[in-house]
């Protein structure tokens, strides 16, 4: 087993004529927290979505947990077979900007459905674990509530519990607080901070610069489909090398 949980190598992604990713290389070690920052349209979310095959790459390679998900051979991208892709991407779990909770299921059922129905784990054990996860995100009392009855911050915390329930090797956060009111982003960030402190590997696409600086081991700055600069938070935020990063930080800080 390699040290890397996620390995993106020279990944290209096109939408028609638009090149969303122009050869991006990013590796994430076990236990590492990587934040991706950059303005809207820079390709951060696209990059994240290439890791778990929500987007198909047009060039380069993607590896998860030391296994190849997709690679480019003789100029052609080859993905694994569908069943193998599914097994591999279950080693990752994603938390979405718009939560994407299953509206017809209670919070508890949202957390248990994948372990029980997909991973075929023991329902009683899964239930106990799910209740523990809901407690971890501070929502013990909402186990039997439906997502429609929760606030945005609560929904996102259930979504985090749901992601953790499949015991992923790495968590992928796609702007987890961007759809929330400013006064409730704190409750979600608190949970993510806690997970980072416990050593969960994660890639975090975010507009929360303060938070990125605080929780990430490493920060990657993207612009125009490329990682322009990458390094320790103190260097990225304190001593930006590139003009583009300097301008970006000026605009957002």
């Amino acid at each position, binding site marked *: 087993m390699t040290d890397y949980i996620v390995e993106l190598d020279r990944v290209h992604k096109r939408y028609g004529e638009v090149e969303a990713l122009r050869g991006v290389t990013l590796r994430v070690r076990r236990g590492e927290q990587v934040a991706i920052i950059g303005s809207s349209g820079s390709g951060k979310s696209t990059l994240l979505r290439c890791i778990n095959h929500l987007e198909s790459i047009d060039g380069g390679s993607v590896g998860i947990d030391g296994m190849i998900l997709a690679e480019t051979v003789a100029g052609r991208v080859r993905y694994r077979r569908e069943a193998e892709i599914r097994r591999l991407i279950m080693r990752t779990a994603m938390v979405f900007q*718009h939560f*994407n909770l299953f509206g017809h*299921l209670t919070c508890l059922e949202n957390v248990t459905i994948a372990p029980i129905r997909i991973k075929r784990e023991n329902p009683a054990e899964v239930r106990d674990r799910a209740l523990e996860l809901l407690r971890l995100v501070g929502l013990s009392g909402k186990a039997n509530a*439906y997502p*429609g009855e929760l606030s945005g911050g609560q929904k996102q915390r259930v979504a985090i519990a749901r992601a953790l329930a499949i015991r992923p090797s790495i968590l992928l956060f796609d702007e987890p607080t961007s759809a929330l009111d400013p006064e409730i982003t704190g409750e979600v960030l608190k949970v993510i901070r806690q997970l980072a402190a416990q050593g969960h590997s994660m890639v975090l696409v975010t507009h929360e610069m303060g938070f990125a600086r605080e929780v990430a081991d490493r920060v990657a700055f993207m612009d125009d489909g490329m990682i322009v600069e990458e390094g320790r938070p103190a260097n990225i935020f304190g001593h930006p090398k590139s003009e583009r990063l300097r301008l970006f930080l000026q605009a957002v800080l």
Partner: protein
Amino acid sequence: MNLSREYVLVLWPALARGAGQTLLIFLLTLILSLPLGLPVALGGISRLWPLRILSRVYVWLFRGTPLMLQLFFFYYGLGIMAGQYDLPFLRLDRFPAVIVTFSLNYAAYFAEIYRAGIQSIDSGQYEAAKTLGFTRTQTMFAIIIPQTLRRIIPPVCNETITLVKDTALATVIGVAELLKAARDASNRDTNTAPYFLAAAGYLAITFVLTLVYQKLEKRFGRHEREAI
């Protein structure tokens, strides 16, 4: 018009039998067409283009031609073909012909309602399911279809109320449902009362249905008090 108690009692047995036939056509058609609409709907959004074409042609044919024409085709048309090509199994009795025609016809309408319901579900639901390891089929049956239920109940109910009235078309191939019973009585007695009684029968059925649908909507509405 004679609506005396004695006359109503005379009419009652025939009209009740007719109403029974109407209800039977209604229920059998629902039992067959509600499930049949699902594969047609799924075919219509399939990744395989032959299935898509097949499903869309099916819907086009059954929605694009008069139900009465379809009734004539399945009763008279198939009967003629049975004789010409020596395929006796094509010959349907009146009642089965009605059930087959109505079921195929309503399946097309239900399929379109299902398809619209499925396509109204946010793509984020598919993405979340995919990242949790669901296959496309598992996603459809465990995540998507259950969430369409509440959205499709109003249009499906609307369609079934239309079906109550469409059952009267069975009269054109001589099935003794409520309208035929009323017309026969009216012609025999030169009296408009049977039509009023038949109208009351249809109204009673649709009234009960409306109550049932209100209950259904409430029940399936629990989890959708606001957008997800």
